[in-house]
C-alpha cells in the first residue's frame, strides 16, 4: 500500500470501466494486469470487444500475465519488451484516438506517472484518467540539484544515479515531471548521510 496523506500525489482511485465509453485504452504494467482481470470479474467481458491493451510485463514477467490478458480476447492486445517502445506505441494510439475514448493506467507509480505525462501532453484532463496502483511502491525521483531522474527507488536516502549526491526522498510529487523530489540529505555536513533504509518496497 502507498502511504496516504501526501497532498501533491495524485489519488489512484482504481480502474472502474466506464460503461458509456465508445473505446477503452488500457496501459498496464506488471501487476497492473491483474487490475484489468479483476474488472472483467466485476463488470463482465462485454467491454473487451471495444478495448485496446498495451502491456509491459516488467518485474512480473514470470507470472506471464500477457497470456491471460490475450486470452480474454480484447479487440487488440500488444505486449512491449520495455517502457520506451510502449510509450512510442501509446503515442500512436493517442494520435488515432477518437472522441469517446477512455484511458486506464495500472501498475507501479513511476509507470502511471510517465503514461500520464504523455496523456497530458495530448491534452487529456488528468481527472478523466482512471488509474490504479499495483505492485511495488518504488518511487521515481527527480534530483532537485542536477534534475536527473532515477527510476525504481526503494530506499531513502539513495544515491542519485546522475550526480551521485545522497538524496532524501521528500513526500512531494510533481505530476508534470511524474516524479517525487529528491533533496541532498547531508548538504549541511557532507559525508554524514545515514545508511539507506528500505522505505518503498
Amino acid at each position, binding site marked *: 500500500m502507498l502511504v496516504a496523506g501526501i497532498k*501533491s500525489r495524485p489519488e489512484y482511485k482504481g480502474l472502474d470501466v466506464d460503461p458509456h465509453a465508445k473505446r477503452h485504452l488500457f496501459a498496464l504494467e506488471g501487476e497492473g494486469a491483474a487490475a484489468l482481470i479483476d474488472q472483467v470479474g466485476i463488470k463482465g467481458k462485454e467491454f473487451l470487444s471495444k478495448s485496446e491493451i498495451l502491456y509491459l510485463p516488467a518485474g512480473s514477467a514470470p507470472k506471464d500475465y500477457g497470456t491471460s490478458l490475450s486470452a480474454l480476447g480484447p479487440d487488440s492486445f500488444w505486449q512491449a519488451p520495455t517502457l520506451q517502445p510502449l510509450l512510442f506505441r501509446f503515442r500512436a494510439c493517442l494520435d488515432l484516438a477518437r472522441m469517446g475514448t477512455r484511458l486506464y493506467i495500472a501498475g507501479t507509480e513511476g509507470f502511471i506517472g510517465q503514461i500520464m505525462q504523455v496523456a497530458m501532453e495530448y491534452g487529456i484532463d488528468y481527472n478523466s484518467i482512471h488509474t490504479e496502483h499495483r505492485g511495488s511502491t518504488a518511487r521515481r525521483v527527480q534530483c*532537485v540539484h542536477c*534534475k536527473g531522474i532515477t527510476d525504481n527507488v526503494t530506499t531513502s536516502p539513495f544515491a542519485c544515479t546522475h550526480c551521485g549526491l545522497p538524496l532524501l526522498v521528500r513526500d512531494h510529487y510533481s505530476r*508534470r515531471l511524474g516524479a517525487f*523530489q529528491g*533533496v*541532498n540529505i547531508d*548538504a549541511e555536513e557532507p559525508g554524514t548521510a545515514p545508511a539507506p533504509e528500505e522505505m518503498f518496497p
Partner: protein
Amino acid sequence: MTITFRNETFRDDFTFRNSLYNIRRFPFPFDRDEYMYSVNMEPHVRGKKDSVFENLIDVDEHYVAEMHDRALVLKEDPLRCQALPHMMAAQWDTLELLMEHQAQDYPEHFTLTKNGDRWRWINRPMGIDDTFTFGDPSTLPYPPMEYITRQAQGDFCIVDQRDNNLWMDAGMVTTQADWSLDFDIGMNFMEWHGPVPLAHQIGVFDRALKFLLNLQQGKPTRRLNWTMTVNPRLDTSPENYHKWGPDRTTVTPENVGEKMHLRVELQSLWRLPRSNAILFVIRCYLISFNELVTVPKWGRRLPRVLKSLPPEIVDYKGLSRNRPIMLDWLAKYDDGAPTSAGIFPD
C-alpha cells in the same frame, strides 16, 4: 525621495548591510510574543511613511544589487524563470502592474510613457530605456514577465484560476526560501503547499484558498511570512542546497549576531485585469541579528517567539541546528519588560 542604492553582494563576500534608515523600516513579522501559522491576511493598502508599506510595490536601497544577484542566478540556472504557454496575457498584466507602480511611486527612478500600445520604459538605476509595443513579445528582449521581473525586487508567481483552484503556472523565483519553481510549476494550491507541516490540519490552506479565489481587482491583499538564513544569501534554493547548506554549520556564539539573518517575506496578491490570474509577489527582506536588536522591542520579542515555536515549525524552517546558539545570544536583549502590540518599533 531619491534612494541611494548600495553596492553590495548576497554571496561570496556577503557585503550586504542595512542602513539605519532601512533597519527602522524592516517588516518585523511578529505582532506578539509567540507565533503560529494563521491566515494572517490584511488589505494591501498604503501604510506608514518610512515603512515598507508606504508604497505597494516597494523599492529600497538594495534594488540594484538584488537585480544583479538575480541576473547571476538566471545565468547559472535559466529554469528559475518559467511560464506555461497559456500565461501570456497574465505576463502582460504583470508587466503593466509593476511598471505603473514603480513609475508612479518612484518618478525619480522610473518613467513610463504610453502612446496607445507604444510604451516607453525608462529605468534609470539600471540604465534601461526601451520602447516596445504592449502585447507584442517580439518587441522586448525577454518575454514580458521575465523582462519586468529582472527589474523588480522580490520573487513573482503568476497563479491561474480555474476549476475552483489556483495553479502555479508561471514564475520568476530566485530568492526563495527552499522551494523549487521548476518542481512546483503546474501544481494547484494544495499541491504546492503539500510539504508545509501543521497548517493543512488546522484548515489554514482551505480558508486561504477560499479567500483568494474571491480576490478582487484593485483590492490586493498581503501577509508576512518568515524564516532564518545564515549569511545574507538571497538564493537559498533547494537546487543549490548542497552549496549553501554548509553555511549552517558555521554559526558560533561569537558570530551569530553577524551571520544569522531574519528573513521576512512580504507576500502580496493582486488580481490581474485581463487574465483573471493572481500575481503573487514574494518580497524578501533580510536583517542580521546585530541590526535587528538595535530596535529594543524586536530584541525582546524575537527570543520569546523563538522559544515558543512548535518543534515541527523549527524543523520545517531549518532552525533546529542553530536555535540554542540563537537563544543564548538573544537572551541578553530580553529584560522581561512587556512589549507593545503590533510589529512597528516603539
